[in-house]
């Protein structure tokens, strides 16, 4: 079973290839969109590469849930994620740091849930149970 460090190395290489970034930019705390410049289509590419790199299947929406804000009208109110929205996120993205979002639940901060650390803990859970 791969260690977190080994998982991180593969994730780092994956992101270097998919996003054309340097290895020193891919830190555990880096956000995929804000720091590494990923766009929506890159998530598909990243998914392909992870599946190949780890020889696993990642069902659609499991690692990168889609349409988070538009899924439910009670999710966002006045530009902020509601408590029920936060609860939904905790359920859908148990591998993400939802606590941090809960501190400042502005809708634009949802993108910051997608970090390198989130990917590593998702894969750790997936590979090591």
């Amino acid at each position, binding site marked *: 079973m791969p260690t977190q460090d080994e998982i991180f190395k593969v994730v780092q290489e994956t992101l270097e*290839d998919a996003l*054309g970034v340097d290895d020193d930019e891919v830190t555990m705390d880096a956000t995929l969109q804000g720091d590494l410049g990923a766009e929506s289509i890159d998530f*598909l590419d990243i998914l*392909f590469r992870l599946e*190949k790199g780890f020889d696993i299947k990642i069902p*659609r929406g499991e690692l990168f849930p889609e349409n988070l804000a538009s899924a439910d009208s009670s999710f966002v109110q006045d530009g902020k994620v509601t408590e029920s929205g936060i609860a939904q996120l905790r359920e859908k993205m148990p591998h993400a740091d939802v606590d941090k979002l809960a501190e400042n639940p502005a809708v634009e901060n949802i993108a910051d849930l997608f970090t390198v650390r989130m990917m590593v803990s998702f894969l750790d859970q997936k590979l090591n149970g």
Partner: protein
Amino acid sequence: MRWFWIDRFIEFESGSYAKAVKNVSLSEEHMHDHFPGFSVMPSSLMIEGLAQTGGILLGEKNDFKYAVILAKVPKVTFHSWATPGDSLVYTARLLDERDEGGTVECTAHVGERLVAEAEIVFAHLDPSDPTLGAIDQKNFVFSMNLLGILEVGKAGDGAEKL
């Protein structure tokens, strides 16, 4: 102008690889501006030709159930160029294929000379999606006419058609 950047397929193995030819001609309008006095096939159009080769390979794998669109070119390197009279041979190999899309690795050669190599990611769209109407059809890597090109190049037994 029709948005066809391959002339025909010369080899096609379903779900595995495809080879297509693009004959570069001085009768193509853009060759006179790119560049005056030194005509070379624009590299962007070579990418389009590679994407059409790979996109049809991917589309055919799923019996053209999805609209296949070029989503991203994560890697491309140009080693050389092609001039009028050259036959560019585009080879695309399917690396990955799933419901959401697929990836191909491809090369462009003139004879033995490697002109370009690239990796291309495609996304699948459901053709029955009503929002698709707004998308410019030119961007799709295949259309009924491109399928016609496939017919020309595909020999019934999978052998190269001369």
